[in-house]
């Protein structure tokens, strides 16, 4: 299992467009030999969780730029639990414009990492790999 490629869902929940950040990250994660499923914008939390289940992903990455990160992330985590997705095995990361105090809040909900503007995409990829590896190890 160890050399299985990490499958990542990159999603833009909510009504915000501004999707170039999510597209760039998708490309950079592909460079890091991950399999990326990109949803496009305007995804409801229900759609994000349904796609994550259907695609059997190891990682969900959410991108937010216009301030609706708290509501949508909380709902996605609730739906993940309802649908039997285990946050002990699925990695959840958030990126975009997230005020510092909200980073603490998102992490308290169970988000593994938050990446703001200016993040190095290689750091994002290595954090995802490391966290996914750790969570896989726990499960295996």
């Amino acid at each position, binding site marked *: 299992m160890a050399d299985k490629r990490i499958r990542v869902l990159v999603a833009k929940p909510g009504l915000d467009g501004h999707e170039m950040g999510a597209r760039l990250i998708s490309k950079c994660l592909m460079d890091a030999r991950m399999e990326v499923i990109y949803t496009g914008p305007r995804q409801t939390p229900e759609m994000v969780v349904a796609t994550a289940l259907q695609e059997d992903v190891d990682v969900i990455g959410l991108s937010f730029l216009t*301030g609706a990160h708290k509501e949508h992330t909380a709902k996605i985590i609730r739906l993940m639990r309802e649908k039997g997705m285990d946050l002990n095995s699925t990695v959840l990361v958030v990126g975009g414009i997230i005020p510092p105090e909200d980073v603490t809040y998102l992490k308290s909900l169970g988000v593994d990492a938050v990446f703001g503007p200016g993040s190095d995409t290689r750091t994002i990829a290595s954090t995802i790999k490391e966290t996914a590896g750790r969570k896989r190890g726990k499960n295996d």
Partner: protein
Amino acid sequence: MKLEDALKKWEEEVRQPSLAKKPENKKEFKTISGTPVKPIYTPLDMEGIDYQKDIGFAGQFPFTRGRTPNGYRSFTWPHDFYSGYGSSESANERYRDLINHGATVITLALDLPTQIGYDSDDPLAEGEVGKAGVALASLADADRVLEGIDLKKTGLGFVGNCIGPYILSVSLALAEKRGIDPAYLRHFRIQNDPLKEYSGRDTYIFPVDPAIEMATDVVEYICRNFQDKWDWQWVPQYVCTTQVRWAGVSAAQELGFGLAHFLTYIDSALERGLSLGDFVPKMDWHASSDLDLFEEVAKFRAGRRLFARLMKERYHCDDPNIQGLRISLWTSANRMTAQQPLNNLARITVQVLAAMLGGVEHMWAPAYDEALALPTSESTRVANQIKLILHHECGLENVIDPMGGSYYVEKLTNQIEEEAFHWLQEIEKMGGVQNAVAEGFYYSEELKGLYRFQKEVESGERKVVGINLLPVEEEIPLDLFKVDSADESRQVKRLDHVRETRDNKLVQQCLEVLGEMATKKAGDKKVNLVPATLEAVRANATVGEIHGILRKVFGEFQAPVKVS
């Protein structure tokens, strides 16, 4: 000695030997768009340029040096703020504060549900109400948002690219409600540019063709009803390329794509029987202003010259009022760093300087805290004042096109004009903007540019202070703006109240008529949807009801999602 020989001699005998002692810091020097640049530019780079034909004077064809004959010497900046958030009450409070600090125009930032035609209580709007702007779900909201603001004194601006007929209707109905003849609104400026949404910002609703036609409805309605009142600064449409640029394209692509959109709108309005003079002089190119000072100045100069040439060559137009392109802009908020945010003041200043050296006539600058949260009242005001400091305190008001004649800037101006024309033709070869959208052309060009930039930063080839040069671990906390989370429920309650107190039978009738008109428009694009929308808005039909009907008739746009 001939200049060529002198240059060669300097290169061999002076510059090259110096590199042995002090080698260059980079393998290649490039503009922010990725164009390689030489170490020095000379009159040799001006070869082929005919001063009178290609550069000329301000206010005259080809307008390279400026649209107006006297530059900033006879110019007053409009104090226009793009702002809005939270509930109607909190947005109103911010607007009054800005007016007290000298704002002459308020451009209402609308929340995403409104921009995409959903009511505040739509399930899809959950968590989004009042976030990226204020909700304008019905005429009642507009009245509350603008309470106590005199519309004869303070101008109104909107983005609302896919809801143009609704926004125009709300503004007209609000004026009526307050007993003002709409023709006497101080100023009405609407971006009304749906193509921006398919090429960079993604806040679209309808498929491309009906979206363009609805935008043209607004242009046509204003031209036919308020033509003689145009001294009052009504802008029915302006072509925005800020987001397409921020999304990663080059300066030349930004201009080329923008002109492709501009010409598409011109052709659409001409098909309605309007003439160029009816609307082109009131439109502008709403560009971005990036950090590469010289490249940006060249872009603005090239933009005016190429537009004037296109008007002359393609539309056989010799009227300087039509040939002269007005440029407005929003500086590049995407270059603001979340790291050490006060450094952004230096970045904004250079972007504003580039715009002013390029003869831009209207601009918004981002706030230094924009990479962290919505701007505060203070950061919004500071952003507006940078241009005034440059204008009055730094000599920018004195001389028209002060960069004109710079060997480097003239060369870049030529290069950008040439490349932009190439990109315009590329889109035309594809069969027009509709096909460029459908083929995912914009996304793919944006991703190429964005990826290149990101890799340049990550490899250290391009330095960004606070990111890969002098990064700091501990950030000084800023006083950031917070949206009150109770705003959403307040807004939903207000909407309930609107639905309970209006004449619902009348609303239904209006919506039926709108549906019939939309069905007619699907068969004949010249059918104008503004009158039926205005009736519905007067009756307090909501943004969701109106666009729900239109969605049924025209369907919704589906974006290509391939990442490549």
